[in-house]
């Protein structure tokens, strides 16, 4: 029934979903002038939170608890990077380290030192009537787990919020010129805090997606650098929600290619495919040079609020 191409495209969307969720959140964070390298930490915390939530209250409790855990990790980042105005790169690196180590420790403490194989309930693909019948892309886009549909809904909502509300205007002005924003009566730190927490929550949902819509279990370090790839995706997507999601699809394709090549049975070593998304990230970042329009105040912890 499904052709090789359809299976490949389905894989693209499936692997792109967690990347897009994390990158969408990071887009909002970066638009406020904060670059959260600790996003990786929110994703892994979201993954562990999802396991805990799902084993106690089912799949959606898993997503919810995953979001909370991602948000909590982002709150630590915000405490240092926003409230204390510490260096965002160092803080983000430390938060990632904290969350990767912390989830490993907690997982072994909760589920046994060997990290006993653990299966959580997972979200099945739900085909949308009619839409999933569209040739070639129908199944890829509209026969996905429902978390993917939530992503579809979030894109226009975030765009609308960013460009058609005063809160969105405040967010963007903080990323461009915090002094101007504050002089206009905007509460700068509050805006940045909210943006970081939103990004963290979506990072958590992204991690939960890895567990609840894909792996069905938790593995230490299963975020595998997706937080960093998401940050690259934000650059590639030029800091706007739709661009971000399109860029995420490119990375989804890179990962899906690996399964595709394995399926058609080439004897290229799999490690090279594993490395491919990271190489692609570098090439993509180099290629966007000169066309980027980063928020002018991004990463500037030296600007006093």
């Amino acid at each position, binding site marked *: 029934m499904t052709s090789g191409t359809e299976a490949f495209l389905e894989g693209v969307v499936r692997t792109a979903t967690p990347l897009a969720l994390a990158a969408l959140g990071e887009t909002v964070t970066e638009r406020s002038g904060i670059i959260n390298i600790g996003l990786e930490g929110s994703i892994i915390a979201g993954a562990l939170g999802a396991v805990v939530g799902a084993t106690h209250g089912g799949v959606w409790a898993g997503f919810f608890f995953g979001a909370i855990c991602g948000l909590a990790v982002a709150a630590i980042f915000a405490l240092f990077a926003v409230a204390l105005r510490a260096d965002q790169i160092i803080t983000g690196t430390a938060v990632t380290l904290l969350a990767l180590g912390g989830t490993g420790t907690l997982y072994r403490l909760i589920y046994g030192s060997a990290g006993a194989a653990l299966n959580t309930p997972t979200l099945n693909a739900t085909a949308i009537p009619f839409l999933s019948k569209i040739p070639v892309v129908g199944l890829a886009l509209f026969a996905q787990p429902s978390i993917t549909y939530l992503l579809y809904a979030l894109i226009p909502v975030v765009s609308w919020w960013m*460009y*058609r*509300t*005063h809160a*969105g*205007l*405040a967010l*963007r*002005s903080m990323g*461009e*010129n915090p*002094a*101007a*924003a*504050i*002089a*206009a*009566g*905007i*509460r700068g730190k509050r805006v940045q805090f909210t943006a970081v927490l939103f990004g963290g929550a979506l990072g958590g949902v992204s991690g939960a997606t890895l567990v609840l819509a894909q792996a069905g279990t938790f593995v230490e370090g299963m975020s595998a650098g997706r937080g960093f790839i998401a940050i690259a995706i934000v650059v590639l997507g030029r800091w706007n929600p739709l661009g971000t999601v399109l860029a995420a699809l490119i990375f989804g394709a890179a990962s899906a290619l690996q399964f595709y090549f394995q399926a058609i049975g080439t004897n290229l070593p799999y490690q090279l495919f594993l490395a491919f998304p990271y190489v692609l990230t570098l090439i993509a970042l180099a290629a966007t040079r000169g066309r980027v*329009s980063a928020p*002018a105040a991004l990463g500037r912890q030296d600007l006093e609020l």
Partner: protein
Amino acid sequence: MTDVALELASISKSFGRSVALRSASLSARRGTVHAILGENGAGKTTLMRIAFGMLQPDAGTIRVNGETRSFASPSAAIANGIAMVHQHFTLVSAMTVTENVALGGRGLFHPRQARSELLALAKRTGFAIDPDARVENLPAGAQQRVEILKALSHGPRVLILDEPTAILTPAEAEDLLNRARELVNDGGTAILITHKLRDALKFADDITVLRRGVTVWTGRAAETTEDALVSAMLGGERVPAESIRNETSHQSPVSDGEVVISLHDVSVRDALNVERLKAVSLEVRGGEIVGVAAVEGNGQHELLRILAGRIDATSGVVTLPPTVGFIPEDRQRDALIPDLSLRDNVALAGAGARRGVMDWIAIGDRTRSLIGTYDVRARDENVHASTLSGGNQQKLVVGREIEWAHVALVAENPSRGLDIRASAAVRGRIIEARDSGAAVVIYSSDLDEIVSLADRVVVVYAGNVCECGNDYESIGRAMLGVTAP
């Protein structure tokens, strides 16, 4: 109801150990223009930032229409009918004019509705503006109008203008201040922060003079004189009254020294490939001060850096001596490393070409002698540059650059932000350098400074450089691109 629109009573404010305001007071009557006069660092801006909720006072009371208020943030001040036009623009350059004016609102943002509201406001107030232009593409004068429209959009009863004429040509400044007068005619109040006596006397009804954070004089403009205001501004300090009016002439006769710096058909394009300087030719001789005047953004930034050898020309021939001293406008960013010691900051000059081992002992000696010669008030050469006052930082920079380069010096707004004594000291050193035969180029956004220092004046307009007479009239016309008749 009282006829006082805004009253600041016994306001005190300290930053760490330094006291900015000591029980300063101000009382602005409804329907008047009120000037706050004082030299740099007197506390004018701090006082007004407190009135606008950007800073919280340590002590004192704010009354609006007789009622006590406290403003936790600018939004609270705005809600009480106070608006402020900042000296350094607080505009988001990547956003449109409409978006900038809408900033700080609540709820939904309807671009089309906001645009038509802005157009109506622009029409009503006479500040013409393109609502769809991105701010970064606007010249300084238009950005100032955006800043003002932003303030007026809230329908303020009290409008604070912080040094609004600093970046304008004389004609634009006059026009703006006349409009401020119109704004108050229907019962509003305008507060004008300025360090220019002339503007205060000409445009204000009332004047308050601040000195070192204290209100030292307040009264009607019509009932005072320039001399009375000068002595209020300076208190008992022994500074010649001319230096505050900046009307002393330090010119020397036309120099017949050798050409030290020369540009021939020099063009510069910036990173976005915009041509900033267009085939400019200029010669600077030893023993002369060439004054550069320009409205912000006309290419003077690039011209000075070409003259100082800090950037490369895109085309043309640049002839420079091996070393050119450079005093950049933003000394905290471009001239000093605040978290390094004075000794390390002195070592910075020429660091790019130095080889081998750093002779820290010799550099330490040189720093100590600089501190002595240039009257830098510092405990010793090992303190961080950040612990020095702005004036002492600038004296260190001036000394370092003059001693390092000897033959050529380029200075950009060298007395910005300094008090009168420090300004006078810095200007004195620049004149000394000229008198000892150095080729000196000085740019200042304060025309008074150029007129008083320069032997020869050039104006940069839209990337072109033209020689002009050293008087306000010719400079003012050339800055607007009007060629002399």
